[in-house]
């Protein structure tokens, strides 16, 4: 370790047990570059790779590269970065299913469109935008229809927002820890920049009757997915989204238009949106009674629990993204809240005995995924890593015991308890309960 840059300084920065270091460490040393050097040195001090030969000029530098493409694809060396695990094919390729975002292979706050999670209830309809319309009716002065072309002429609004399935992380209610990855346990959340027309503008054009307190939104898919939405949310920050990360919404995410209800359970963000009916009372559809309601204590069922509470998960390291050797690492992960901005993320390396604040990467946006990072000097001893998100309302992501004590373990949905990753002495990372 003799050539380790700033070893002494780094070691004095421990801010919580088992090697967590000050979140500003990498920044203070003159930006990411020095930090990265420090980190490399920290690792290299233990097992510096040996180059038998001197540097060679690789073939790809001595051969002209591939020709231009109309729509580019990721490098063929990134083949493992795919959605999954895909469900069993029970009905000859039709029916409900979901595909999860590979959180552990991504960095930053944005989910690439091809990796956005998907939950669909009877496949992805093949919609010709020229034959698609949005109908707004019910308790309005003027029932109206809008073509995709017409909506494309409206003034657009953009926001970066996560969408999370209410069933995400549901496996964490189980009595024993599932042997899973960040993707398989928590991959039903993604974050994109959505651009579209303010729903309030369209509702005002139709003229909302003062007796309308709810609306039911319906999709043009073969499940005709339908969900009731309170009028307050519809007039607040709801959007009819036409674009996803700059391009038209992907078919798996609702092409040619989807409802976006920032922070609300994913299922309500109705894809392939074709109809909005204003109502006095909620419609009590199958997916807001039989499903997406929470069976809590004493057989009671909590219905219309809409915002997704604050949650966080460490993606690096995490199962499959193992530690290689003792040394200096960056712990990194994602945090989000359906109630607003993430105010703080704390990380522990000793199973919750001591916590240190992580750095939040800019931008930190309301109801968007926020990236957090904190340096960690791993000694090589077993460790338990956890993160907990605190949002701008002061809400703190609960422990497993606290969440289950409050609502029992049969709620199935809205699980946001703290995840524990156990790091073994050999560097392997596993999902554990701690």
């Amino acid at each position: 370790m003799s050539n380790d840059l700033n070893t002494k300084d780094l070691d004095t920065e421990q801010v919580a047990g088992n090697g967590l270091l000050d979140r500003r460490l990498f920044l203070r040393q003159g930006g990411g570059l020095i930090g990265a050097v420090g980190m490399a040195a920290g690792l290299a001090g233990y097992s510096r790779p040996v180059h038998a030969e001197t540097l060679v000029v690789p073939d790809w530098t001595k051969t002209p590269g591939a020709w231009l493409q109309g729509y580019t694809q990721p490098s063929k060396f990134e083949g493992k970065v795919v959605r999954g695990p895909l469900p069993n094919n029970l009905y000859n390729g039709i029916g409900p299913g979901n595909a999860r975002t590979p959180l552990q292979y991504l960095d930053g706050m944005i989910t690439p469109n091809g990796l956005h999670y998907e939950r669909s209830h009877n496949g992805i309809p093949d919609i010709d935008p020229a034959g698609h319309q949005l109908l707004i009716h019910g308790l309005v002065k003027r029932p109206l229809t809008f073509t995709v072309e017409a909506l494309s002429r409206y003034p657009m609004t953009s926001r970066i927002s996560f969408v999370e399935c209410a069933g995400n992380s549901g496996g964490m209610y189980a009595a024993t820890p599932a042997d899973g990855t960040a993707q398989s346990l928590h991959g039903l959340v993604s974050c994109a920049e959505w651009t579209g027309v303010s729903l309030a503008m369209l509702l005002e054009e139709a003229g909302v009757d003062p007796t309308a307190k709810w609306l039911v939104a319906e999709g043009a898919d073969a499940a005709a997915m339908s969900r009731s939405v309170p009028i307050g949310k519809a007039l607040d920050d709801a959007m009819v989204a036409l674009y996803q990360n700059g391009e038209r919404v992907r078919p798996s995410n609702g092409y040619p238009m989807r409802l976006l209800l920032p922070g609300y359970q994913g299922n309500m963000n109705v894809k392939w949106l074709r109809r909005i009916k204003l109502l006095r009372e909620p419609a009590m559809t199958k997916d807001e009674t039989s499903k997406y309601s929470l069976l809590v204590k004493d057989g009671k069922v909590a219905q219309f629990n809409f915002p997704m509470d604050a949650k966080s998960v460490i993606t690096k390291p995490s199962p499959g993204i193992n530690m290689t050797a003792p040394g200096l690492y960056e712990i990194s992960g994602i945090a989000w809240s359906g109630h607003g901005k993430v105010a703080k993320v704390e990380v522990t390396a000793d199973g919750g005995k001591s916590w240190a604040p992580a750095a939040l990467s800019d931008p930190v946006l309301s109801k968007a995924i926020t990236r957090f990072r904190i340096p960690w000097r791993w000694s090589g001893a077993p460790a338990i890593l956890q993160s907990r998100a605190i949002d701008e309302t002061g809400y703190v992501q609960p422990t497993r015991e606290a969440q289950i004590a409050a609502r029992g373990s049969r709620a199935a949905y809205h699980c946001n308890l703290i995840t524990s990753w156990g790091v073994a002495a050999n560097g392997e990372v596993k999902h554990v309960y701690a």
Partner: protein
Amino acid sequence: MFTRNIAAISVAALGFTVGLASAAESPGLGQPITEKEAAAWDLSIGPDGVGLPAGRGTVKRGEEVYLEKCQGCHGETGVGTPSDKLVGGQGTLMGDQAPVKTVGSFWPYATTLFDYIRRAMPLAEPQTMSDSDVYAVSAYVLNLNGIIGPRAVMDAKSLPKVKMPNRDNFYIVYPGQIK
């Protein structure tokens, strides 16, 4: 031309909805349609039965429909697999046991059954059954759960009157949030 609108929209995004109506002038490209014309797309049935169409169905006819169109996925007499169980599970919602949520044990409204079957079932050919057959198969599923008798007839009047056994265990959280 849109500067003013964009300002109004960003105000809306901040959560100030008051005044949006007058402030946000829209391009006005919505095409007027009558409620009568809209009915061709309107699948929504309220828990009070609003929206239920004409037609009627018996438990007996429902059994025929079920055997032909539903049994393959929901099992003989609704016992399930590979798809959801539609029958049974009463008494499993209490305590710590694994809950078996079915139409009979869990669903709060009988109208939801008509609404859902009409819009989404059978899985491979949704929206192909007659309204009377949807009433009939709804009646059959309710009868299998012991909620209505074998001679019951379901239509726009009788279906909303069916009281579902688990109805009173549902409570609405909004605008609150559960712990």
